[in-house]
């Protein structure tokens, strides 16, 4: 399709913003924010536009663009979106747009902060829209690396005191500090990318060393033995980013130490990058490998759900609660993918979106609470609902979505996923899933009650706290609005997603 390169503009607009910020906005903090807002606004507007104009009857990849990069190796800059990536692009642009507002108050070195943040977003968009495995990998790496500096420079160190028999060893690593978290996160994710790279190269060679194109590989039936190990490589590689147990430990540390906008983006969008990559490359290219290994994927997804929820219950640091809840919810996503049913897959993709918005909202709120009260310790705070009604309400909405209350996006996602789990070959998956949803309600309501709705804390520091202000309101309203909108009218999202999951399942041979 010739014409306006919409996807390229969506992807590269933040990058252009980052370059402009570096060159034009030295020592002009307000200009920095306006440029960031404008460039992410362009992406948001265009992603809404492509969402609206995507032709559902035609399905498949649309808004196709192609440019030859390294012809002798078959590397092409090839972009396109189907129903799943469409929703992911929308998610990314909403979260980053809200993220720019939420980090309006970053003071220290804000120029570099916004530039790196926008660079990161370009990487994320790139992964969702690329159809060339090589370019996808390229963007994937870009999405990982700025994180090191973002957490290392602007992050916050928590008050973790390692205990237990290995406490002495953990203390030596500097656990809880932002430097530790930044390094851990970066190394884990790069470790994962090593597996992805091997998998991609294996497919490339098996397909005849002529093209990295997803569309061409999709048409090839790979050898089952190859599929089996490449699937595992993709599972480990993308799974690390999706936070699969037991490789999830970077996520609580990283998300708790990261600055607000980065936590929002990372927990909200980057973890979906893992799930998306797994869906696109793992399920999309390796049907035999998928049918062979889904039992493992689904079972570990169940472990994630329960383990994440139990861990979240044990935390005393507000940010860690939210971080562990992400681990739990990503379990739902992986479980949904493993069901290989239409409902399960739709639910899973919907959960990626719902959780992205919800966790983005959570981290924005935690950031706001921390900024006003300078505390993340749950049990020292109390009764904030009277002083900051806006923040309290938003937190409660996010919490209700998190535990899957009807009329929020979380309900639709979990309902579909669990339905899929029941319909799948391993119907017992339903029980850990439901148990997880129950545990979630315990920890979410406990936190909401303690901090916002319970009796007021006696601590004099917490007597006069302001509510959200100016730009912060914008972030909250956008995210709460989307969460409720998609809960009330899930069809907006399920429609396009269905056009992508049904052909995928047909290819997997699950649907007749």
């Amino acid at each position, binding site marked *: 399709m010739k014409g306006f390169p919409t996807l390229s503009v969506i992807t590269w607009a933040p990058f252009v913003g980052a370059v402009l910020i570096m060159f034009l906005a030295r020592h002009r903090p307000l200009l920095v924010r306006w440029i960031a807002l404008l460039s992410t606004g362009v992406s948001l507007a265009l992603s809404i536009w492509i969402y609206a104009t995507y032709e559902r009857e035609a399905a498949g990849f649309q808004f196709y663009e192609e440019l030859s990069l390294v012809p002798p190796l078959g590397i092409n800059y090839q972009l396109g979106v189907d129903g799943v990536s469409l929703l992911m692009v929308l998610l990314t642009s909403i979260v980053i747009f809200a993220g720019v507002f939420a980090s309006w108050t970053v003071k220290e070195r804000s120029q570099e902060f916004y530039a790196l943040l926008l660079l990161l977003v370009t990487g994320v968009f790139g992964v969702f829209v690329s159809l060339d495995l090589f370019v996808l990998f*390229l963007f994937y790496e870009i999405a990982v690396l700025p994180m090191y500096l973002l957490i290392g*420079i602007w992050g916050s160190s928590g008050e973790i005191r390692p205990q237990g028999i290995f406490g002495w060893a953990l203390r030596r690593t500097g656990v809880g500090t932002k430097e530790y978290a930044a*390094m851990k996160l*970066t190394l884990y994710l790069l470790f994962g990318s*090593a597996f992805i790279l091997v998998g991609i190269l294996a497919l*490339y*060679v098996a397909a005849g*060393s002529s093209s990295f194109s997803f569309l061409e590989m999709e048409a090839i039936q790979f050898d089952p033995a190859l599929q089996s190990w490449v699937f595992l490589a993709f599972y480990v590689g993308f799974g690390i980013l999706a936070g699969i147990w037991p490789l999830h430990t970077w996520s609580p540390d990283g998300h708790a130490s990261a600055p607000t906008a980065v936590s929002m983006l990372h927990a909200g969008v980057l973890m979906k990058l893992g799930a998306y990559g797994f869906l696109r490359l793992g399920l999309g290219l390796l049907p035999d490998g998928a049918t062979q290994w889904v039992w493992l994927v689904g079972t570990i997804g169940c472990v994630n759900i329960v383990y994440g929820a139990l861990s979240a219950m044990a935390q005393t640091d507000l940010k860690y609660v939210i971080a562990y809840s992400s681990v739990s919810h990503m379990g739902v996503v992986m479980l949904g993918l493993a069901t290989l049913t239409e409902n399960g897959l739709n639910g899973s993709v919907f959960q990626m979106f719902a959780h992205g918005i919800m966790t983005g909202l959570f981290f924005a709120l935690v950031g706001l609470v921390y900024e006003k009260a300078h505390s993340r310790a749950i049990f020292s705070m109390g009764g904030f609902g009277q002083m900051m009604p806006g923040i309290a309400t938003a937190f409660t909405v996010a919490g209700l979505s998190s535990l899957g209350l009807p009329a929020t996006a979380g309900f639709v996602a979990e309902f579909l996923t669990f339905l899929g789990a029941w319909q799948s070959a391993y119907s017992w998956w339903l029980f850990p899933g439901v148990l997880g949803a129950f545990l979630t309600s315990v920890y979410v309501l406990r936190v909401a009650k303690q901090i916002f709705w319970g009796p007021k804390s006696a601590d004099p520091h917490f007597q006069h706290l302001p509510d959200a202000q100016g730009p912060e309101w914008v972030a909250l309203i956008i995210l709460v609005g989307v969460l409720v909108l998609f809960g009330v009218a899930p069809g907006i999202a399920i429609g396009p997603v269905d056009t992508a999951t049904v052909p995928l399942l047909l290819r997997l041979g699950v649907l007749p």
Partner: protein
Amino acid sequence: MALEVGLAVLILLVFVGGLSWRGQDKRRLGVLVAIGLVILLWMAFRAEPGAALFGGSFVQDELAIFSKRLFLLATILGVLASLSLRAPTFARRATEYYVAMLASLLGMLVLASARELILLFVAFELMSIPLYVISGFCKREEEAVEAALKFFLIGTVSSAFIVYGLSFVYGISNTTDLAGVAVALQDGHPLLILGMVLTLGGLGFKIAAFPFHMWVPDTYEAASTPFVAWLSVAPKAAGFVVMFRLYLEGVGGPVVLWVPVAAGLATITIIAGNLMAIPQQNVKRLLAYSGIAHIGYMLIGFAAVSASGVAMMLFYLVAYLFGNMGAFFVVEAVAQSDGSEAISAYKGLAQRSPVLALCMLLFLLSLGGIPFVAGFWAKLLVFKAAAEQGLYWLVLVGAILTVVALFYYLLVAKRMYIDAPERTHPVPVSPFLAFSIFVCVAGVVGVGVYPKPLVMAALRAASGLF
């Protein structure tokens, strides 16, 4: 042949110029050297593959031309950076320095074209011996003498290995012509294989593959940084060219013999280099060990024993040239300003000299293999070549150890960007050094953003070997 003759003339000019120079400061000679080398580089870019000379012992094929350009480019950068050296001993003895450097370069140029065992060995020694001399250039410093001695002893032993191995090769194949050796290899006589493996051991010392690497960190630490930058790239590239000529060119089917040897050597070199780099506190030592690891990555391309493997390795060498030399130049700039080569000297560099810190970051990212800088393509292409050979396990080892490498590169990045500065004044960079750094940054980013021409050139250079 024109290049070699031109270089010989340049050496004589520098020699005579140095003798007739009045005054203590002879550094200006470097400008003459640089200009001469730029002319030679221009000639190298215009050179066309020609007929073999001297009965086939001297060839000017695509591989020779490609590697000669690489040697000349590395030498120009090394010479430019050396113009910023301020030590009085250097100023007084600059003639020796440049003549030795150019003599070594002459060895490399001949080496790239040698297709005959004796010429190959003579060129190899011509390349190596001046390196020992320059390593001990600061003869009043104990460390420099120690480093030079260590380098010299290990270097001679490795030369002995090579000669010993080559004697077997000659004994079995009855010819010193490499084409004849390749033919003899078809029979796979065990003594011939033994000779070749012994030679590989000797070459392993020169390219600093593990376990033949131990001279590297000490020599790098003690010798002057612009020289080390050059030493870390050019002679190793020459070593690899010899390996292509000796083990791959025209061998045909039996070439798979070298797969396990090269893959094993690559694996241990990557693992050892990367792991030993972690505890280093001195940047030059860190880069020395990381350089060993990079040699391992290049050996992956060698282990692929295919045209694309060799091409990707040549590509890797170019990426490594820009990234590694650039990093050493930044080290030199910081050392000239703060008098320290410790990693802790980089604290807060991003706030003192943002541009210099950004350059260093780009070099480190390139060495670490991150997209949009040259090193990423280099690693990826080498992996691709190995994957085509079915060496997936090697790719996995390499890719995982890249994470280790990024760990220690990021530790330097952390000092520069996250830690608070200890000093406030910016780091002054002399113009010649700044220019060399600029060229390296341009190379790293240029190749990273638009790798196509270089990939094509490398593929063309390697196409004649198989």
